[in-house]
Structure formats: C-alpha cells, structure tokens
C-alpha cells in the first residue's frame, strides 16, 4: 500500500455485513455469564413493569368504586414495592453492565495495542501516527456501549416483540397480518437508509481520522510551522479538513436522523390500516370491537420495540464504521514474527555474517544486492559511504527489523530468522539516528535500556557517555521530568541520554547509527575514550562521518551501489587510494 497522507482517506474494501458484529462476540463471550444474568434481570424487571398496570386496573375497577380505603393503601404499597423492585433490578443490571462494557473495551484495546507492538516499522512509516492513535483511543471508546448494553437491549426488544406478536396472533390472525404488513415496508425503507448511512459514517470516520492526523503532525511540528511562518496556511488546511469533516457528519446525520421519523410514520400508517381494515373492510360481525381495540393497543406496543430496534441498529451502523477500523488494524499481518518452532538465541558471542543478502524496502527496488561479509566476535566495524547507500539498512537487518528477500544472516552461525525476536533483540544494543525521549524522568529514560538496572548503574552509564555532567546540572538531576519533544534538552543532550540507555542494556552487539552526530567534538572525544573500554570484547557496528570515530575501527566497509565497494582497515584502504581514500580527502 502506498503511504498514506493526512488528506487521503484510507480505503476500506470489505463489504458490510454483520460479520464484524459476529466477530466482536469473541470479546463478549468472556462475559456471557454476566450478560445472561443481566438479560434475566431485565426480563424480571420487564415483568414487574407489566404487573404494575394490573394493580392500577384493580384499583380503578374495584377498589375505588367500593370505597375500600384499606385495599387502596395496600395497592399503593404494592405499587411502591414493584417500583422499588424494578428500580433495584435496573440498578443491578447497570452496575453489572458498566463493568462488562468497560471490560470489553479494555480487552479490545489490549489486543489492539499488543498487535501494534508486533507490527513492523513499515506500518508506522506508512501512515500518519495520528491515524493510529485515534483508533486505539477514540474508536475503541465508541464501540463500548454498542457491545454491552446495545446487545442486551437488542435481545430484550426482540423478546418483547415476539411476546406481543404471540398475543396479537391469539387475538386475531387477520388483523395481525395487517399489522405485520408494515414490516416489509419498514425493511425496505431501512435498507435504503442503511446503505447510504453506512457509507456516510465510514466517510465520517475517514474525515475525522484525516483531521486528527493533521492535528497531531502540527502539534509535533509546531516549531517548524513557526520557523516557516506557515501558521495561517496550515490553519487553512486544517479548516478545510474540518469543513470536510463537518460536511461528512451532516451528511451522515441526514440519514441517521431519518430512521426514527420513518419508523414513526410507518407505525402510524399500520395503525391506520388496522382501523380501516378492522372497521370498514372486514365484516364488523367477525371482528368484535373489543378485539379491534385490543389490536390497536397491541399494534402500538408492537411497533415500540421495532422503533427501539431500529434505533439500536442505527447505533450499530454508526459504530460499526469504527469497529471495522479496529478489526482492520487487528488484521494487519505481522510480517516479522517468530518462526514456528523458533528457539531462544543463545548468549551471543558476536560473530556476524551476511551471506548473499539481497534486500529492498519496496518490491523490485533492491537496496542491497548479494551482500556478503564476515565479522568476528569483538571486532568493531565502521560503515561509511554516501548518505542513503544502505548503511542504516545493513544494521537494521542484523536486528531483523526487516526480513531479507534472499540470502541469510547469521550470528554465531545461527540464522537470525530461526530464533525468537525478543531473545535476539534484547542482546543487541541499537542506538538509532532519532533519539526518542519518553515523558518521564531522565533516570527512567535511561533505565529503558535495562529495566532492572540500579540507580548507580544508570549514573555510571551516564558517566561513561559524559551525560552525567549536564544531567547533574538539571533542576532535579536524574529525577528531572523530560518529555517526548525533549523538553528543554538540546539535540546533543538527547543523544547522550539515549546513548546511555543503549550502553546500559549491556549489549553483546552494539550498533551506533550516527549516535554522536549532534554531540560536540570535545564531548565526543571524551565519549570515545569511555567507549573504547566498553567496546572491548563486543562486536560493534558504527555508522559515523567523523573520521576520528571511524579510523580506529578494525574493519571499515565502504558501502555503495547496493553493496560493499571496499573494506579493510584504515591503513589498507588509504593505501588502496579508492573510494574511501577519496572520501577521506575530499573535504577541506
């Protein structure tokens, strides 16, 4: 799939059916005991509701004409009793269903989040992050009521309907048929509305997703907007997205709001038909007036559940647009995953070899072709070459961030696709170009490298990379709160923190991808000294442009044109007077 932008709708191809709802039963199943209990309670409550009018009827027909004060008081007390019982039952049901509803969305969100953790980089690279976020938070919230109370109410109304239908059939079959004749009409109208409605709500979810994706990018990139004084222009783009959203919303409610009036009108027509058929068409002799009176009463009551059901379905359709998106995310295939029967990576010694590795991010465009090399445990390897030649790609492949299309990569002779990802990656220390800082303390940000590290170990790691100096000068030292955007940290400082994080993880293979690019030269020199100690006995891959960093490496590989153009030690390559020599001397 092509990358998605903020202003492009994400197309959804699956046709509408109730499979999404069926599928959501997986989440409901867990709570079916409680759901059934709630249903039983609802039925009990409905029965008390039916009994109450009997008391009133008795009072009006018998007690009051008899002037029986005592019985009147008894009846009032009984009515009060029914009232309290019905409220209590309702309350218990609400308590149960609140928990069930919250649990269901909790479960869905857990699954969604867990699945997102398994998805590869490409998933995150291919769409604005705001679009992912809104699914995890807002969409999941939207479906909670539908999957808890919605379903119970639906069943209740169906039962109600069947119940009344039976009564109607007992009273008069012919009139029942008249009452039922509204159903096909109802179905027809609902079907027409539903078709448009579903598409309209999908459009709403798309438009809101677009709008929020743009919003998120603008929050993250507010500085850039200000640097380029694009405030007004961006605001206009947002206005446009906002307008589109409003338009789609208005279109959707145009259909949604039709459902209730349509049902109301049909129900009235059916009652009218009952009067006409009962009073004028059928022979009054065969239809007693009592029957007709009862039938019209039942007909109104028969349509009440239908109206409620149409409302519930209406709600379902609105929310299914969200459910579809959630399931779509859950269905996104995890491309990089543990092979069946994958074993734990044994403790890594550090021999890394690439055997005829071919890889491309997109089909048909190979970034690396037939790449082979052998690195012995403990060696340090520098990758140099023009930007975009594939240096970062090579190091990402070692951690199996992407799967290669041909060849194999082994560590200590073990094919990395045969071992579990966790056992592989947890032994590697990768410091990426982007140093991401979590909203937490500096201490916790470093601890991310090894969760059970003591505070002392953290400080010592920070000292090794010369981060201790500036951290100590911060307001609360290691306990200073920083946030995702760095919160007052300079680029170099962020790198040092993420550097410390990587070192703390005590990796067997260390990958430094431009790890020190934003750090000043003096600090870097100090860091180098600290590192030298640390690198002993570990295999390391270093991508850097500073010669001081590169020069001392055991192996220097010059990457160009899908592969290694030359490799050797610094002296060897200098003597060779090839690409490396040129690069080295090109400057100044």
């Amino acid at each position: 799939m092509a990358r998605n932008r903020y202003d492009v709708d994400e197309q959804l191809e699956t046709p509408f059916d109730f499979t999404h709802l069926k599928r959501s039963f997986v989440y409901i199943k867990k709570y079916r005991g409680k759901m059934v209990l709630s249903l039983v309670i609802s039925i009990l409550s409905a029965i008390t509701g039916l009994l109450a009018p009997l008391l009133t009827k008795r009072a009006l027909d018998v007690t009051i004409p008899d002037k029986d004060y005592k019985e009147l008081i008894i009846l009032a007390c009984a009515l009060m009793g029914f009232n309290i019982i019905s409220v209590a039952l309702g309350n218990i049901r609400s308590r149960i269903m609140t928990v069930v509803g919250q649990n269901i969305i909790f479960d869905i969100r857990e699954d969604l989040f867990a699945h997102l953790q398994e998805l590869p980089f490409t998933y995150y690279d291919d769409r604005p992050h705001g679009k992912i976020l809104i699914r995890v938070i807002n969409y999941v919230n939207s479906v909670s009521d539908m999957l808890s109370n919605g379903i119970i109410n639906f069943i209740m109304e169906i039962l109600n309907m069947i119940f009344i239908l039976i009564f109607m059939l007992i009273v008069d079959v012919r009139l029942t048929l008249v009452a039922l004749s509204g159903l096909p009409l109802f179905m027809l109208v609902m079907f027409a509305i539903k078709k448009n409605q579903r598409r309209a709500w999908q459009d709403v979810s798309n438009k809101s997703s677009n709008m929020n994706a743009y919003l998120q990018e603008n929050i993250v990139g507010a500085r850039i907007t200000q640097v380029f004084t694009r405030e007004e222009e961006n605001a206009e783009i947002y206005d446009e997205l906002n307008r589109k959203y409003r338009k789609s919303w208005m279109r959707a409610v145009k259909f949604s709001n039709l459902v209730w009036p349509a049902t109301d009108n049909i129900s009235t027509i059916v009652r009218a038909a009952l009067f006409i058929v009962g009073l004028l068409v059928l022979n009054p002799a065969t239809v007693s007036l009592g029957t007709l009176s009862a039938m019209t009463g039942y007909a109104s009551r028969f349509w009440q559940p239908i109206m409620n059901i149409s409302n519930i379905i209406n709600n379902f359709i609105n929310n299914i647009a969200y459910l579809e998106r959630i399931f779509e995310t859950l269905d996104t295939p995890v491309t990089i995953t543990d092979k069946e029967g994958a074993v734990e990576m044994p403790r890594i010694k550090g021999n890394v070899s690439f055997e005829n590795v071919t890889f491309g991010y997109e089909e048909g465009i190979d970034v690396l072709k037939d790449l082979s090399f052998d690195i012995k445990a403990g060696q340090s390897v520098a990758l140099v070459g023009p930007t975009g030649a594939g240096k970062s790609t090579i190091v990402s492949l070692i951690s199996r961030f992407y799967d290669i299309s041909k060849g194999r990569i082994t560590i200590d002779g073990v094919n990395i696709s045969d071992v579990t990802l966790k056992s592989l990656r947890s032994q590697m220390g990768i410091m990426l170009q982007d140093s991401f800082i979590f909203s937490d303390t500096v201490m916790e940000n470093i601890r991310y490298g090894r969760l059970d590290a003591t505070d002392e170990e953290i400080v010592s790691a920070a000292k090794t990379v010369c981060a201790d100096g500036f951290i100590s000068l911060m307001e609360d030292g290691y306990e200073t709160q920083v946030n995702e955007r760095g919160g007052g940290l300079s680029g170099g400082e962020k790198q040092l923190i993420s550097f410390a994080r990587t070192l703390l993880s005590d990796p067997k293979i260390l990958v430094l991808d431009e790890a020190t690019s934003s750090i000043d030269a003096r600090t870097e020199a100090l860091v180098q000294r600290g590192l030298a100690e640390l690198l002993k006995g570990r295999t390391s891959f270093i991508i850097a442009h500073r010669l001081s960093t590169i020069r001392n490496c055991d192996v220097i590989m010059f990457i160009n044109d899908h592969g290694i153009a030359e490799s050797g030690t610094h002296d060897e390559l200098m003597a060779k007077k090839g690409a490396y020599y040129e690069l080295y001397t090109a400057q100044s």
Partner: protein
Amino acid sequence: MFEFRWLWENMKGSRRNYIIALCLSVLCNGLYITAPYFQSKIIDNYISGENAIENLKNDRSGLLWLIAGMIGFTFIRTVFQYTCNMYYETASQGMIYKIRTHLFRKVENQDIAFYDRFRTGDLMTRLTGDLDMVRHMVSWVIKGAVESIALFTASMVYFFILDVPTALCILALTPFIFIIRRKLSRYAGPAYRQVRECSSALNTAAQENISGNRVVKAFAREEFEKEKFRKRDEQYRSANIKAAYVWLKYQPFIDVIAGSLSVVLLLVGGIFMIKRHLTMGQYVAISGLLWAVSNPMRSIGNYVNDFHRFVASAGKIIEVYYFAPMIVDREDASEPAERLRGDIEFKNVSFSIEGKKILDNISFDIKAGQTVAIMGATGSGKTSLINLIPRFYDTDEGEVLVDGKNVRLHRLHALRKNISIATQDVLLYSDTIDSNIAFGDTSLDEEYVRKCAELSCASEFIEELPDRYDTIVGERGVGLSGGQKQRISLARALAVRPSVLILDDTTSAVDMETEAVIQKSLAEGLDFDCTKIIIAQRISSTRKADKIIILENGRIADIGTHDELIKRDGYYREIYTLQSGEESERQVSAVGT
C-alpha cells in the same frame, strides 16, 4: 457559569439556528403530548363509545378524516422533529467547527514553553474527546434539558388546570429530586475530572508508544510497553467504573421518586375519587400524561452527570482556548518595507529558562551577508542563542537587533518570514517531498524546488526514489536516512530565500564529501543574499566563516576567524587539534584549497 458563556460566545453565527432548534424541540414535545388525540378520538367515537356503531354506519367520512388526520399529523410532527434535529446538528457542528479552528490556531501560535508543558497526547485528547463532550452537551444535553423542562412545565400546568390538590401532591415530590441532584453533583464532578485525567494519560501513553516505535523495537521492550499501557488502561477503566458508580449510587433514589408519582396518583387520586373530588376522566387524563412529569425527573440525573463530564472537558479546552503566548507583536512593532538586509547584533544579551541561566551577557554583531559559525559544547546555549533571533524566546536583559532594530519592534510574522532555520531535530510532514521542500512557500514552482534540492545535494537521492519528488515521506520522515532528512530540511530552509539562514547542526549526519559540496553551494550557489549562521561541530564546516563564536556555559569564550582562533589557546584549537589529527593524514590534498 463561565462554561456556558463561553459556549454562547462560540455560538456566534450559529445562534439563530440553535434558538430555532430549541423552539422547534419545545414545539415537537408539545405535539408529542397531543399525538394520541386522533387515536383516542377514533376509539371513543367508533369503537368503544356509546354511539360507536351508529357513527360507523353514518359517519364513515368522519372516520376517514380522523385517520387522515392521524397520518398527516404524525407526518407533520416527524418533519418538524427531523428539521429540529438537523437544526441542532447544524448549530452544534457550526459551533464545534469554530472552536476547533480557534484551538488549532492557538496550538500553532504558542511559545516553546507551551509545547514543553502540554504533551502531544494530552493536546490530542483536548481536541478530540473533550471537544466531542462539548458537542454532546450542545446537541444533546441542553436539548434534552430544555425539552424536559418544557414537558414538565406544560404537563404540570395542565395538571393544575385539571385539579389543584392532586397537582400539588405530585409537585411535592420534586424537592427530593433536587436534594439528590445536589448530592450527585458534589461527587460526580471530581469523578469525571479523574476520568478525564486518566483518558489523557492513556492517550499520551499510546501516542508516545506509536511515535517511539523504533526505540521500543530496538530494545525489544514490547512486553514492557504493553504492561505500561495496561496499567494506564486499567486506571482509565476503573476511573470510568467509579464515575458510573457514583451515578448508580444516586440514580435509584431519583428513579424511585419518579416512579412514586404513579403511587401518589393512585393513592391521592383514589382517595379524591372516593370523596368525589376528582372524576374518572380527570384521573385518566392525569395518569395518561404522568410520564411527561416522571421522565424529566428521571433524566435530571443524566443531565447532571453529563453536565459534569462537560465541565471537566470544557475546562481542559478553555485552558488551551485562552492560553496566551508571551511572545506576541508589540503595539509599536512595524512591518519592514521590504526584505530585511540581515544585519544582526546581540547587545549584552542574557537569557534564562525557568530560572536557569542559559546565556550570559552575549554581545556580537554580524553584518549582512556574512557567514558566522557558532561552536561550543553540548548544552552551551548554541540553539538557545539562535532561537533569540526569530524571537522564539525573549531575552531577559539586553537586546537582539536585526537590521539595527530590536527584534521586538519587528512584526513577528515579518521577522520570521525573513529568517529560516534548518533545525536540529528534523521534522518532515507525511506529505510529498515536493510539498515538504516548498513548505515555507507553497507557491514555489517545481523548478525552484529542484534547484533547492540540488543546492542541498538532495536531488540525487530524490531522483532515485520511486515517485521522485512526489514520493510521500512518512511522519518525521521515517524511511529516509538521517542525512537524507537533513538535506531535505536544508532544501526547505533555502526554498524561502531568507535574509538570514540559520543552520543548526544541519549536516551532522551527512557524509563529508556531500558536506563539502553543500558548503560550496551555500557559499557560491545561492541566488539571493543572506546572512548565514551555522552551528556545527566540525572544523571543516566552520573554517571558512567570517567569524567564529565560541560559547562556553552560556558565555562567549572567544570570537575570531579560523586563523586567529587556531593561534590562541582554547576550545577551538583543542577541537582543531582533535580533528586535524585526521586532517594531517590527508595533508596532501589539503594544501592549496
């Protein structure tokens, strides 16, 4: 209530629609009360009444008229209802649109301090979930409350007309509802604020996990992240349940009281009827309309509940809505006649963030067209210094002058339009490369975009991308290497043809060969005049500068040209020696250039 005044303020433009909607909904409820009229008339006249059989024989057209009336009346009523709902939607969407656009502009125009204070996930919550709560308030809660009040009042008036004592007995129950409502109010507020906080924390956790997905994978921290998220999700869940339980604690009392209406009617009405004070007809009329009193009573709890959710959310929105940036145009600020020349001067500038001194007594000047390099250790204040020029921060003491005029006397917009920065942290939009480069000036033609890409040595790799300039880069430019991103960012900065070009460590991830080419094109290839300020770590980037400023702990440690500085002891010579170790090895080629 300030929140309501705020809503009213934002309803400008939609007020007429909203008032129409409110009136219509009162009308519809009135129609709803009278809805059973036709049916009961039919039943009375043609089915159960004394003259039913005769009427049916003699007055069939009357029956047909009643039936037509029933259908027609329902139709009219539903048309009104539909129109009314659409008016509500139009008005509430109009208002939300207005608030949303205002918020967006607010969020966009803040100082750096704002972004440090509000996390992305938190701002997202405010502009999504919270805003939806406001919409719910306007299109649902207020509507419901107005309808309830109308319904309640109308039917109570009707009851009083029918029979005063019975009506009084029914009304006597309402004070209890208000007592419970007040209690509910007291606890519902804090509960919903808690829900609101948890929702924001959940949002932040998810947002950072998504943005930081590479780090998560690099450290194989998926399980840890799931655990972290689960904790937040659990808190969110329990806050929600707690808030619902506050409501469920009081709701039964309200429901029982509302339900007692029928008990009161049965008892009081029964007694009155026995005493012949009340007729059967009156009783039936009251009992038939009792729902119009009990339903509003029941729903009062819902409204209180929703109201507190609204207040919790609106508070969060209003905070951002009125958040004023400190750095704004001064009244006496002026718009420069044309393009700035690019003279820059710092006069005794001191600057601190949250009491921490960042820059201390900085003075220097740069003539238009000069190239100045700034060097110094990590955290020495380099980025802060350049941030003072486009006034991303204001100085504590001293002044920053551009073209001889204090930056505070320039219109902010005009000032920033003349300055462009290639920032340290490269942030690209999920958009095409072309749009990313033309970010500062969307009217730019394709040719110039290409030219800028060439100047920043980006054209080569762009040409190799599948869709070239139309390739969509992911958020933060993921999918591109660090050096590639930096070069696009440089092209973006060049594309606006600034008077002052600031490069904040822009070529750190670019290989040296490319860097040399970029430097050359910056020195010779630009088709506009500009002052260049370069923050760099490499001597190779700074040696040709007209002036090199060395910062140490926020102070200027030294100023001079490359040749001057290498003669003196200090940071520059130290770095020079460090880096020229490398250089000495390629002395041959260094000579003569």
